[in-house]
């Protein structure tokens, strides 16, 4: 039987899902690590991005941080945290993933807030808004599409990278793949890979819908046709972030 057939057999056995250390337990662990990491990164990167964007300073630093982070392999960071005094396990994994989620959120928040039209901001000030009101009621709504892009990139990246943690003693769905390699069980390898891939695509989908739901003003889901003049049909150059 082919590896893909074996994978289907494995995934069709309810016991493989519900037993201790089964798919459901690993999935919950995977999601818990990811959610904590993204929230921690959001807590750190979002205020810094808004503050830097609103003041217009530190742009060079933000760009350098984002470019250098692209060159650091996720596996290296996961391993470095695992062998640090924190000790290997889910805590080290969560911290490493949070570190990785910071650059996309920071850059997109910064660019989004920075890109708010100066005239709009000035008009808001002239209407008597305080500095805080301008940020809350003008900057943030206008920057929201980009902020959500950053959050989506970071979340998909974290969910995807969390599977690598299994290589260095962490938990999550990556364990199935690792176990499959350890036991020479091709079916288990493919089953784990399928679960990881589906989870990543679903995460992307959920975040796309979430951004659509919270974005004010005219909005569009990625698969809806674009209404624009044909000579403007230039796609975004590359998906933000990097593959994992």
């Amino acid at each position: 039987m082919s590896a893909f057939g074996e994978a289907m057999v494995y995934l069709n056995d309810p016991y493989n899902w519900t037993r201790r250390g089964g798919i459901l337990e690993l999935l919950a662990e995977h999601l818990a690590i990811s959610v904590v990491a993204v929230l921690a990164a959001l807590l750190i990167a979002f205020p810094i991005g808004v503050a830097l964007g609103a003041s217009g300073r530190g742009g060079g630093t933000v760009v350098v941080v984002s470019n250098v982070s692209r060159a650091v392999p996720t596996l290296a960071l996961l391993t470095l945290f695992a062998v640090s005094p924190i000790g290997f396990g889910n805590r080290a994994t969560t911290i490493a993933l949070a570190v990785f989620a910071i650059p996309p959120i920071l850059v997109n928040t910064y660019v989004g807030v920075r890109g708010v039209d100066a005239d709009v901001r000035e008009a808001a000030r002239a209407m008597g808004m305080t500095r805080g009101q301008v940020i809350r009621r003008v900057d943030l709504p206008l920057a929201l599409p980009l902020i959500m892009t950053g959050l989506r990139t970071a979340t998909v990246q974290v969910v995807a990278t969390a599977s690598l943690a299994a290589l260095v003693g962490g938990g999550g769905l990556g364990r199935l793949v690792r176990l499959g390699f350890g036991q020479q069980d091709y079916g288990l390898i493919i089953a784990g890979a399928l679960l990881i891939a589906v989870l990543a695509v679903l995460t992307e989908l959920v975040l796309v819908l979430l951004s659509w739901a919270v974005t004010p003003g005219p909005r569009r889901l990625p698969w809806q046709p674009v209404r624009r003049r044909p000579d403007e049909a230039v796609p975004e150059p590359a998906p933000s972030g990097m593959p994992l």
Partner: protein
Amino acid sequence: MLAVDEAPNPWIDPSYVTDNWDTILRYLGEHVRLTVGAVVLGALIALPLALLARRSRYLSGPVLAASTIVYTIPSLAMFAFIFPFQGLSATTVLIGLVAYSLVILVRNFLAGLLGVPADVREAARGMGYGPVRLFWQIELPLALPAFMAGLRIATVSTVALTTVGVLVGHGGLGQLIYGGFNANFYRAEIVTGAVGCVLLALVADVLLAGVERLVTPWARAVRA
């Protein structure tokens, strides 16, 4: 307290690098070969795809959608999917890396081609340029900055991604990172692998930036 906790385990140990220079060079060579192979093959496949996708929106839609999905698949899953076909070989890693560099390059190539002003193409056609000459002499030079930007992003990402090849035993410098972890958390080996990866990515990026300057002399003239 275990004995292993008391043994010195420094983060940075120059003697590790000098003692294991041959091993490091071997893994570095594999890393460079995989990266170059993946980016070159990716570019060779991406260019015709981008040219094809430019022809109509009915073609570019599926190409872009497929590239988004491939991009979302985590590398661990990607290598695991290819593993049953190619086994524990460098080919497994290469195929996965080509897939990722391909989707980055298609998007950038397409953006570059669509960025060529329609007026310029029309003028060239009016002057009697055929499709081949139009591409080589008009579109390629104009799209070159976008092409080079794509190549730089693809190269840096590929250098980082190659490390995940440890899954099938061909991760280039990633072997040092993973090997150090399995050798009782040998920090010097891990740091050597990690720093090596970052340095390799930076060197590759600087080299490509130099190439970009060489092949677009007109951009320098404008700036000066």
